[in-house]
C-alpha cells in the first residue's frame, strides 16, 4: 500500500459515516465526502486503467475534471453510465464501479503485450496500417474497438427523468472559488439578480484544498463559510452546486448541467425529481471565475501509476485525508511544490523536492523534507507503478542537462508544470486565448469582453492576492455597465511574495527526443513528446494538424492536462513563438453531457408534438390504424375484424366508388384571406387565374416557387369578392403561410390583404361516393342538393345536422363528394351524425391509404410524393393550371422559360401499367430503358412515385416521372428494384373515368 488514510484537520470527509462500495466486484469502504478516486486510493488501488494504444498501466493523475485515466463504468443495467471520471464520482452507499480498460483484465492486458512493439506504433500509424486487405477492415475494427477500452453504452431504457430550466439574471458567476464567491457577493450586495454555479459538490474551489490559506484575516475555510452565509441572506441570489457550465453561446446564453441525484444511492433517488437538469441561463453579465488547472511536467515514464500532479497530491491530502505515498518526490516550476511538500511531510511522509531553479527558497520547511536545488526529474522508473525518480541537473537558464543526478526511491511522484487557466467558455465563440510569457500560460483578457467579465486566476492572476484584486476591478466594471452602485470589497490575502517560477514543460533527459523512455503529453491517447516532433517532421505543422495527426486533446478529458504542454512543445519544435502557434479550437461541451440532459422532455411521448383532429376519438373507437403525416396522427385504415391493410383498403375503396364512404380531412391547412386585393394576391401566388372566380365557387390551385417548381396545391374557395378560403396540403400549411407572409411583407406590402390561419378552427368531414348525396340529404334540408343547383366545384352555406356548415362540392377521389366544414368544437358530433345518417347505406370510414389509392386512380398528384421540388406544372402534365396572361405575373412564371426548365425531355409524370397485373411496383423503383441490368452504370430514366393495387380495376397502377414521358405513351419500359426487373407500359395517369363524369354527376 502506498496511499494511506491520514487524519487531516479540515478535511471534507466525514469519518463517522462509512460507505460500502465495490470496484471490479471487490468490496471496498470509504467515507461520506470521498470521491470514488480518493476512496480507491485509500483502498490501495494504484493501477486503474490500461492505456488506449500501448496498454500501459495507468493510475490517477489529477483530482478533478482534468483526470484522463481513471474512467469507470458506474452501476449496471438501466442505470449504468460509461466513462465517468473517478475523480468526479461522489461516493455513495452501494456504489458499483468497474474499470473500462484492460482486456481480458486490468492486471493482465493483452494489448500491453502488443505494446512491446510500440516502436512500430507511433502517432499516425493507424492511417498507414490496417488498410489491406480492404475486406478485413470490419474485422480489424471489431478487434481494435475491443482493445481500445472505454466503457459500454447502456442497452436498457433510461428509467430516470431529466428536465430543463430557464433563467434570466443580471449576473451569472461561473465558478465558486475565491474569485467567484467574491464576485457573487459584490453583485448580490449591489441588489443584482445573481446566479452562482460551481461544478463541485461544495463551493470553495482551490480553497477546499488549502483551507488554511490566509484570507481576510482568517483561514480560507472560514472565508468560504462566511461568504456562503452572506450570500444565502440575499433573496435575489441563488447558488447551485454540482452544476457545470458546459457552453457559452451567442448573446450570453450559458448552458449548464446540474447533477441533482447522481450522488445519491440508487435506492434513495426520488423518481419524482429529475436526475439531471439542464439550466439555460441568459445573463446581462457573465462573470467567468473558472480558475486554472495545474498541468504536469513532461518527462520519461511520467505515466506510471503513482505519478500525479502536485495539486492532486495536495487535494487528496487536505480535502480527502489520503496521503498518496510514504516516500514522495515532488518537482515543479514554482513554490507550490513547497506548499505541498510541507503539508505531506506534516502528514508523515518522507519528502524529496527536486527544484529546477537556481536559488533556494527562503521558507521554513518541515523536517523530512530534503531539497535538491537545480535538479529536475528526468525519468520515472518502475514497471507496474513508480518506484524511483532519476534526477538530472539542469543548466540554470537553458533547458539542458548539465550533469547526472541521484536516483531517489519513491512510491509517489508529483510534478507541477504551472497553471493553465480554464479559458474554454470564453473561447467558445471561436476566439483563442492569449499567451502570456510572464506567467507561461494561455489566459483570457483581464478586461473580458462585452457582456463577459473575467475574474481571478483564469486571467493569469495566479496568487490569491492578485486574483482577488483583479476580481474587484472586474466587478467594478460590471456594476458600472449595469448602472448600479455597490460596494466593491474583497478580502486581503497576505502571503509572502513567492519566488519567480522557472518555466519548464518538457524536462530534458540528456538524450535526443524519442531515444529515451516515453514522455507522455496526452495520456488518454498515448501521445508522447516524440509523436509531436514526428508530426512536425512529417510536415503536419499547423497546430490543428498536429492535433489530428497525433490525437492530442481528443479524449474525454479534452486535453485539460495535455493541451498546453502539447502547444508549447509544438512551438519549440517549430522554433516559433508560442503565441503565434496558438491553440486548437475550444468547443462545447466543457465536459461530457448526458444525452438525457440535452433532451429534457423532448423524448418519448413528448419528443415531438402529436397533433390530432377534433374527431380523433371517433377513429380510435373504430379501431383505426394510425399513421404519422407531418406532426399529425391520421387514420391510415379502418380494419374490420382481422382484416389486413390490403383487405381494409379494398373494402374502403369499393365503398367510396360504389356506395358511400367518409374521411376526416381536418388536417389540411386553412387560411382565411381578406381584403380588396385578395384576388390579385391569389393571382400572384398561384399559377392559375383567380380574377373570374365568383362567390360560391372553388378552384384547385398550384403554388410554384421562384424556380417554377410545384411546392403546394389545394382548393381555394371564393366566399365573397374580398374574402377567400384557401386550403393547403397537411404538411405544407405552416410553410405556405410563411411563404404568403414573406411575399406580402417584403415584396407587395401595398397589397391590401390579410391572411390568418384557421386550420384548427374548422373540422372537415369528406362525404364521398355515388350515394353521398342521399346521405347528405338526411342531414341537410336547407341547401338545394340537386346537381343542377349545386354543381361540382361549388360551395354552399347551410345547416347540416343542425350545425352551421360550409359544404364544398370538391373531390379528391373522382366520385361525387361533399366536404362538410364545421367549427371544430362540433367536429366529432358532425362525424357521428354523418355515420348515423349513412348507417343504412353501410357508410364506410376510410383513411389515408385508401385516400391515396382513390386519387392515384384518377391521376391526381400528391405534392411531396409525385413532386420533389423539381417538377413544374408542365412536367406534371398540368399546363392547364398555368395562366400565362395574368397582368402582373405569378411566382415562378418567368423561370418556366429558362432553357433547362423548358426542355422537352425533362422528367414528366406518366402512368405505368405492369405486364403482370398482380405485381405492385415498389415506390422509388428506377425506370430504365432495357431489361439487361448486367452492365452498370446505365441511364436512369426516372422513378416510380406512387404505386398501388386498384380495387376497382383489380390490378396494379402506378405513377412515375420519366424523361420525355409525355411522348412515351404506349412505350415498353422496365422498372428495377432490389435487383429485379419488371416490364411495364407507359399509360395515361388517369386510370378510371377519364372524362370525369362521376365527380360531375
Amino acid at each position: 500500500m502506498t496511499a494511506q488514510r491520514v487524519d487531516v484537520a479540515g478535511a471534507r470527509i466525514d469519518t463517522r459515516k462509512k460507505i460500502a462500495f465495490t470496484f471490479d466486484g471487490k468490496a471496498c469502504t470509504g467515507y461520506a465526502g470521498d470521491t470514488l478516486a480518493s476512496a480507491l486510493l485509500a483502498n490501495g488501488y494504484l493501477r486503474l486503467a490500461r492505456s488506449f494504444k500501448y496498454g500501459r498501466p495507468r493510475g490517477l493523475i489529477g483530482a478533478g475534471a482534468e483526470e484522463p485515466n481513471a474512467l469507470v463504468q458506474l452501476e449496471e443495467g438501466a442505470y449504468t453510465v460509461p466513462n465517468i471520471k473517478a475523480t468526479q464520482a461522489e461516493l455513495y452507499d452501494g456504489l458499483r464501479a468497474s474499470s473500462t480498460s484492460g482486456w481480458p483484465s486490468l492486471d493482465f492486458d493483452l494489448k500491453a503485450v502488443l505494446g512491446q512493439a510500440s516502436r512500430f506504433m507511433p502517432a499516425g500509424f493507424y492511417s498507414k496500417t490496417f488498410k489491406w486487405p480492404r475486406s478485413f477492415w470490419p474485422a480489424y475494427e471489431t478487434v481494435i474497438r475491443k482493445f481500445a477500452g472505454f466503457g459500454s453504452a447502456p442497452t436498457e431504457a433510461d428509467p430516470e427523468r431529466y428536465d430543463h430550466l430557464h433563467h434570466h439574471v443580471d449576473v451569472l458567476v461561473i465558478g465558486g472559488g475565491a474569485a467567484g464567491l467574491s464576485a457573487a457577493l459584490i453583485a448580490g450586495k449591489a441588489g443584482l439578480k445573481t446566479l452562482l454555479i460551481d461544478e463541485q459538490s461544495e463551493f470553495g474551489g482551490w480553497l477546499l484544498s488549502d483551507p488554511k490559506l490566509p484570507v481576510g484575516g482568517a483561514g480560507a475555510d472560514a472565508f468560504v463559510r462566511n461568504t456562503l452565509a452572506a450570500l444565502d441572506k440575499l433573496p435575489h441570489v441563488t447558488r447551485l452546486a454540482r452544476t457545470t457550465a458546459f457552453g457559452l453561446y451567442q448573446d450570453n446564453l450559458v448552458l449548464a448541467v446540474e447533477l441533482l441525484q447522481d450522488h445519491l444511492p440508487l435506492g434513495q433517488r426520488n423518481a419524482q425529481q429529475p436526475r439531471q437538469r439542464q439550466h439555460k441561463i441568459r445573463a446581462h453579465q457573465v462573470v467567468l471565475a473558472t480558475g486554472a488547472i495545474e498541468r504536469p511536467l513532461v518527462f520519461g515514464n511520467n505515466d506510471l501509476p503513482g505519478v500525479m500532479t502536485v495539486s492532486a497530491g495536495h487535494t487528496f491530502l487536505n480535502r480527502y485525508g489520503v496521503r498518496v505515498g510514504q516516500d514522495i518526490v515532488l518537482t515543479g516550476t514554482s513554490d507550490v511544490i513547497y506548499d505541498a511538500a510541507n503539508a505531506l511531510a506534516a502528514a508523515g511522509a518522507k519528502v524529496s523536492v527536486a527544484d529546477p531553479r537556481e536559488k533556494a527558497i527562503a521558507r521554513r520547511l518541515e523536517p523530512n523534507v530534503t531539497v535538491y536545488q537545480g535538479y529536475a526529474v528526468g525519468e520515472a522508473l518502475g514497471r507496474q507503478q513508480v518506484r524511483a525518480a532519476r534526477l538530472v541537473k539542469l543548466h540554470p537558464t537553458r533547458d539542458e542537462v548539465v550533469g547526472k543526478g541521484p536516483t531517489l526511491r519513491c512510491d509517489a511522484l508529483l510534478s507541477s508544470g504551472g497553471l493553465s487557466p480554464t479559458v474554454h467558455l470564453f473561447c467558445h465563440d471561436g476566439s483563442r486565448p492569449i499567451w502570456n510569457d510572464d506567467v507561461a500560460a494561455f489566459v483570457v483578457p483581464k478586461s473580458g469582453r462585452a457582456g463577459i467579465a473575467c475574474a481571478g486566476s483564469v486571467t493569469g492572476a495566479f496568487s490569491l492576492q492578485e486574483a482577488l484584486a483583479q476580481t474587484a476591478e472586474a466587478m467594478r466594471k460590471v456594476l458600472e455597465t449595469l448602472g448600479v452602485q455597490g460596494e466593491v470589497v474583497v478580502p486581503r490575502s497576505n502571503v509572502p511574495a513567492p519566488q519567480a517560477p522557472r518555466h519548464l514543460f518538457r524536462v530534458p533527459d540528456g538524450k535526443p527526443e524519442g531515444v529515451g523512455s516515453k514522455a507522455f503529453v496526452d495520456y488518454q491517447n498515448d501521445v508522447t513528446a516524440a509523436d509531436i516532433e514526428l508530426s512536425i517532421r512529417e510536415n503536419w505543422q499547423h497546430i490543428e494538424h498536429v492535433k489530428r495527426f497525433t490525437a492530442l486533446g481528443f479524449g474525454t478529458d479534452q486535453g485539460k492536462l495535455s493541451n498546453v504542454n502539447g502547444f508549447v512543445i509544438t512551438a519549440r519544435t517549430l522554433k516559433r513563438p508560442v503565441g503565434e502557434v496558438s491553440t486548437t479550437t475550444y468547443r462545447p461541451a466543457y465536459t461530457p453531457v448526458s444525452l438525457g440532459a440535452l433532451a429534457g422532455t423532448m423524448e418519448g411521448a413528448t419528443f415531438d408534438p402529436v397533433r390530432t383532429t377534433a374527431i380523433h376519438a371517433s377513429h380510435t373507437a373504430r379501431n383505426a390504424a394510425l399513421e404519422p403525416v407531418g406532426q399529425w396522427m391520421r387514420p391510415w385504415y379502418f380494419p374490420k375484424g382481422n382484416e389486413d391493410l390490403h383487405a381494409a383498403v379494398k373494402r374502403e375503396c369499393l365503398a367510396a366508388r360504389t356506395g358511400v364512404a367518409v374521411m376526416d380531412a381536418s388536417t389540411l391547412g386553412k387560411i382565411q384571406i381578406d381584403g380588396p386585393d385578395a384576388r390579385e394576391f391569389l393571382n400572384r401566388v398561384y399559377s392559375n387565374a383567380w380574377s373570374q372566380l365568383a362567390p360560391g365557387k372553388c378552384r384547385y390551385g398550384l403554388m410554384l416557387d421562384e424556380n417554377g417548381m410545384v411546392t403546394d396545391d389545394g382548393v381555394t374557395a371564393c366566399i365573397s369578392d374580398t374574402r377567400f378560403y384557401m386550403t393547403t396540403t397537411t404538411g405544407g400549411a405552416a410553410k405556405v403561410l410563411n411563404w404568403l407572409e414573406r411575399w406580402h411583407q417584403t415584396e407587395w406590402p401595398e397589397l391590401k390583404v390579410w391572411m390568418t390561419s384557421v386550420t384548427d378552427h374548422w373540422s372537415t368531414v369528406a362525404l364521398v361516393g355515388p350515394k353521398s348525396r342521399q346521405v347528405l340529404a338526411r342531414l341537410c334540408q336547407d341547401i338545394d342538393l340537386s346537381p343542377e343547383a349545386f354543381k361540382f366545384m361549388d360551395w354552399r352555406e347551410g345547416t347540416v345536422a343542425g350545425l352551421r356548415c360550409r359544404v364544398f362540392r370538391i373531390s379528391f377521389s373522382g366520385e361525387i363528394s361533399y366536404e362538410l366544414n364545421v367549427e371544430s368544437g362540433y367536429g366529432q358530433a358532425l362525424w357521428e351524425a354523418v355515420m348515423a345518417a349513412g348507417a343504412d347505406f353501410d357508410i364506410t370510414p376510410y383513411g389515408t391509404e385508401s385516400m391515396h389509392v382513390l386519387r392515384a386512380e384518377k391521376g391526381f398528384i400528391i405534392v411531396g410524393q409525385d413532386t420533389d421540388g423539381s417538377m413544374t406544372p408542365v412536367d406534371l402534365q398540368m399546363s392547364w393550371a398555368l395562366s400565362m396572361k395574368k397582368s402582373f405575373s405569378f411566382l415562378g412564371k418567368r423561370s418556366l422559360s429558362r432553357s433547362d426548365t423548358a426542355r422537352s425531355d425533362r422528367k414528366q409524370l406518366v402512368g405505368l401499367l405492369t405486364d403482370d397485373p398482380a405485381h405492385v411496383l415498389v415506390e422509388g423503383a428506377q425506370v430504365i430503358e432495357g431489361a439487361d441490368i448486367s452492365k452498370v452504370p446505365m441511364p436512369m430514366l426516372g422513378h416510380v412515385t406512387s404505386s398501388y393495387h386498384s380495387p376497382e380495376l383489380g390490378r396494379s397502377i402506378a405513377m412515375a416521372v420519366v424523361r420525355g414521358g409525355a411522348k412515351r405513351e404506349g412505350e415498353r419500359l422496365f422498372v428495377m428494384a432490389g435487383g429485379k426487373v419488371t416490364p411495364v407500359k407507359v399509360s395515361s395517369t388517369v386510370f378510371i373515368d377519364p372524362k370525369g363524369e362521376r365527380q360531375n354527376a
Partner: protein
Amino acid sequence: MPKSIQIAADALRSPLSHLRPAAVRGDTGLRAAELPNLGYIVLRGRQDDGVFLDAVAAVLGAPLPRKPRSTVRCAAGVVLWQSPDEWWLLCARADRDALVQALEQALQGCFAQVADNSGGFTSLRLQGAAHQRLLNHLSPYDFDQLGVGQCVSTVLSKATFTVLRTDEQGVTLVFRRSFAGYIWQLIERTAVPYGLQLTDAKSCSDAWLAPLLADGKKATRVQPSFA
C-alpha cells in the same frame, strides 16, 4: 321524408374535454383547469388606422390595446394584443355570433379582417405557488417581466402559446386545439416534482375569463353599432 339527423344539445367539445378533472385534494402547490368553450375572434387591422380603431372601439366598448403585451377588459370580454396588426378577442361563446356580425358590419369598407377562431383555441389556467417556476421549465421567456394585465406569445418546447396574467396567483395559457394534447402532456410531465392537480374551472379560476364561461354570468348582450 326521413327526419333530419341532429346533434345533441351538449355536443360542443373543448380541446381538453378528454381529460378527467378531479376535486382538489389538500393544499396543492400547483393546480390547473381548462377554461372550456370560450369564443376566440381574431381581429386584423392596422394600429395606425384611426377609422379601424374607432369602429372596433364602438363595438367592444373600449379601445384596442396598442402597446406590445397589453390587454384590455371590455364588456365583450378580454382583448389580447398579438402584434401591431393582430388582436385576439376572448369572449363568451354565446356572444360570439353577435360579436362577429357586429364587427364585420362595423368594419365594412375598412381594411380589416374578422376571423372566427373559436374552434381553434383553448385556455388553461395554471395557478399556485409553483406556477412561475413551471413556466420557467417550459419556456425561455423571462416571465418575471410579465405583469398583471399583460400577455405574451412565445414558444414552449416544440409548440407556441400565449400566456396571460390577470392576477398574481396564476396565469392562463392560450394554445391551439391540435397542439393541446401535446402541451398538456408537456405540462403534466414537467410538473411531476411539484404535484400538479387537474381540476375544474370553478376551483381554478381566472377572474377576467370566469364570467365568460358557459356557466358563468349570463352572456352580455352585444349591441351592434350598425343595425
